[in-house]
């Protein structure tokens, strides 16, 4: 069994698992949820994906399902009704020529960088220390010469400002 050729699902999986995972991780920011959502995408693929379709269509289908899965993940936070990953029909085809993000996490990263640049200095600083350098609240506070309480308030306000600056997205 072990020496046989990979089957159609395994081939699709091997080709896309890392890309889908990064796509999802860039949107949820933690590994446990990224694993869950990635699993959902491939579970859905096993049920519905026609592996005989051409590779571009398969990729587009997978990323569409991944997009819906992450959108639903956030809908739970917004208390919105869920769309469900099965929203993408097995025969779904992209309206436009296939657009698959070639390096999804880098693209998301660039967006975050652009956003940070638009924030006031102390907001940018607190977010960089907390999220990019991954310092604790206490370390961040010490670095910035403020109290722990102020560091928490500052990161809260900085996130609020950043969220307001961000372009509305479809998810």
């Amino acid at each position, binding site marked *: *069994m072990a020496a046989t050729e*990979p*089957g159609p*699902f395994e081939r*699709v*999986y*091997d080709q896309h*698992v*890392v890309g889908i*995972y*990064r796509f999802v*991780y*860039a*949107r*949820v*920011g*933690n*590994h446990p*949820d990224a*694993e869950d959502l*990635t*699993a959902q995408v*491939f*579970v*859905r693929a*096993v*049920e*519905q994906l026609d592996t005989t379709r051409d590779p571009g269509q398969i990729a587009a289908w997978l990323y569409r399902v991944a997009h819906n899965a992450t959108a639903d*993940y956030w809908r*739970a*936070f*917004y*208390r919105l*009704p*869920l769309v469900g990953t*099965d929203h993408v029909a097995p025969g779904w085809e992209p309206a436009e020529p296939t657009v698959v993000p070639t390096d999804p*996490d*880098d693209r*998301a*990263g660039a967006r*975050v960088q652009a956003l940070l640049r638009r924030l006031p200095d102390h*907001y940018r600083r607190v977010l960089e220390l*907390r*999220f*990019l350098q*991954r310092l604790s*609240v206490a370390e961040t506070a010490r670095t910035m010469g*403020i109290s722990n*309480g*102020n560091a*928490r*308030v*500052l990161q*809260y*306000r900085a*996130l*609020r400002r*950043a*969220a307001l600056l*961000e372009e509305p997205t479809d998810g």
Partner: protein
Amino acid sequence: MADREPPERRDEDAAERFDGFLETLLGDGRPSPDAVDDRDEAEMARMAAELAASGRPGAESAPDPAFVEQMRRRMREADAGIDAVRQPPPVREQPLAEGTARWRLTRRQVLQAGFGAAAGMAAGVIGASLIGQAQRRQIGGDGTLVTGEGFWTEVARLDEVQPGDAVRFSTPAFDGFVVNDGGTIRALSSVCTHMGCTLAYRPDWQDLRCPCHGASFGLDGRLANGKTAWRAEGAYRGDAHAYPIELPDLVRPEVKVADGAILVWTAQA
């Protein structure tokens, strides 16, 4: 520089609470939707998640090899099981013989929980039948299936499912419970309609409870601890205790009872 001045009390409280969400996220835990208070905070949570991800480029945002391997094994199982899944089991003669092989939890090797789980949603046929009432789909006299696309699968014996009971079953396409809701036999998906976690039956509560975020579904397949359900029962205990969002009903495949056996209809394209 208002932010450098002593913060207002209200902001301080919100900031401290929200920091709980951030600590979970940055500690690579699984943040709960309950940690955010409103839509503004949901936006902030999402922003925080993207920031957290962008702070971990390259190898740090790659999947764990153990996870990749585990999923690959499931893909192999799907590749191996694909014929078994697409081919209905042989239709049995009636009456069903005692001790006939049945699709039970042992079939989970073919389709692990998640697979069967989500497949249930695709099966999506609604139905419930009263014991002894007219069957909505007949099995022909020669024992072959005469209607529709799909097949019946025996999942339990009727006498195993007493009123208030829920018995777990698993077919190649569907994971669920057969329940006896005060005399009505019903099949319910075991997949929570929130994020797809597997529900567990609690005999004391007569409900199917989700281990992930605590949704409770009644034996009718409806969310039982949401605001709407509580208000309808006149038992509203306040938003803080209710499940925060309304969830769709559990998928209910069609069931029938024949010869003391409970059968579930699996639709097939």
